[in-house]
């Protein structure tokens, strides 16, 4: 062990330590988004977003811009996240 390494022991984990896992995670996310676009498969997200919006609209008046559809890919699972921001008025009426 060199002196430098000994100092590193006391300094604790450096800022760059473990950045490889961040790289992996970022790649998995971006490729999940890009692959449908670059590999000629249908990009269903915009259509999905529109249809979900239509269904919700049947029950509550919502703003088109307040809906977000995201896909995240982890090592062994994919997650489709749909978040809809409801106006206060609509929520109180539903409850």
């Amino acid at each position: 062990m060199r002196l430098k390494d000994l100092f590193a022991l006391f300094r604790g984990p450096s800022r760059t330590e473990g950045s490889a896992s961040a790289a992996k995670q970022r790649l998995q996310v971006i490729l999940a988004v890009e692959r449908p676009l670059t590999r000629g498969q249908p990009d269903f997200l915009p259509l999905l977003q529109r249809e979900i919006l239509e269904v919700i609209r049947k029950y509550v008046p919502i703003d088109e811009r307040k809906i977000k559809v995201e896909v995240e890919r982890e090592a062994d699972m994919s997650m489709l996240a749909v978040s809809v921001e409801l106006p206060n008025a609509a929520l109180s009426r539903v409850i």
Partner: protein
Amino acid sequence: MSQVIVVTSGKGGVGKTTSAAAVATGLAMKGKKVCVIDFDVGLRNLDLIMGVERRVVFDFINVINDGIRLHQALIKDKRVEGLYILPTSQTRDKDALSREGVERVIEELRQEFDYVICDSPAGIEKGAYMALYFADEAIVVTNPEVSSVRDSDRILGILNSKSRRAERGEPPMKQHLLLTRYDLDRVAKGEMLKLEDVLEILAIPVLGVIPQDDMVLQCSNLGLPVVLEPKSTAGQAYMDAVRRLLGETVELRFTTPPKKSFVNWLLRRTA
């Protein structure tokens, strides 16, 4: 049965030409008859890496467009039997590569050579498309780094959709990952993507892992394909990859850090 193999990556500077030169030379060292073609029209470099830059008279583009015969342009390597280099033009641009012309040259090479190695330019423009279009197999050169992995993924998509095999609905091109500039120390520290990470993301079989090795630069300084330098760990790893390409089962080397035991440390100190 002749095999046409493209060495490609999308991203520039990851080691395509070094790898194409090493694999072609390695295959010839194994007794195969090999031709390696430079597809980077206007930015030729394979001739330098192979150390034949002073021997270029005619090139690939002359054969396609100017009625020069293939054998007038092929450069025979003086070190390894059965190894030929087809350099490209330094003055023309990629429009000089017509699909029909490239097809004619590759078909002619297939008659004579066991392996035709196509060294692709970076990017996804015409030169890169021409290099991969007629290939039977692809070696995707990737560095363990985010932009390189992303570009490799993009290239895999193109191989599966834009190659002649894909257009004709033939069996898909065989694809191999060649992970280069692998720095074991940085992988051990968690600073660099490890082989398993890259494999998980790209999901193609690994042909080889080439360790970071200062000898690669020294070999390129000399115009020596790195497999001709037996002391180079990168050269040894390339030879392993060549043997795998030929169907041998060869265990991966240089993928786990040497054990940090006191005895090892002492040995290294006293060596």
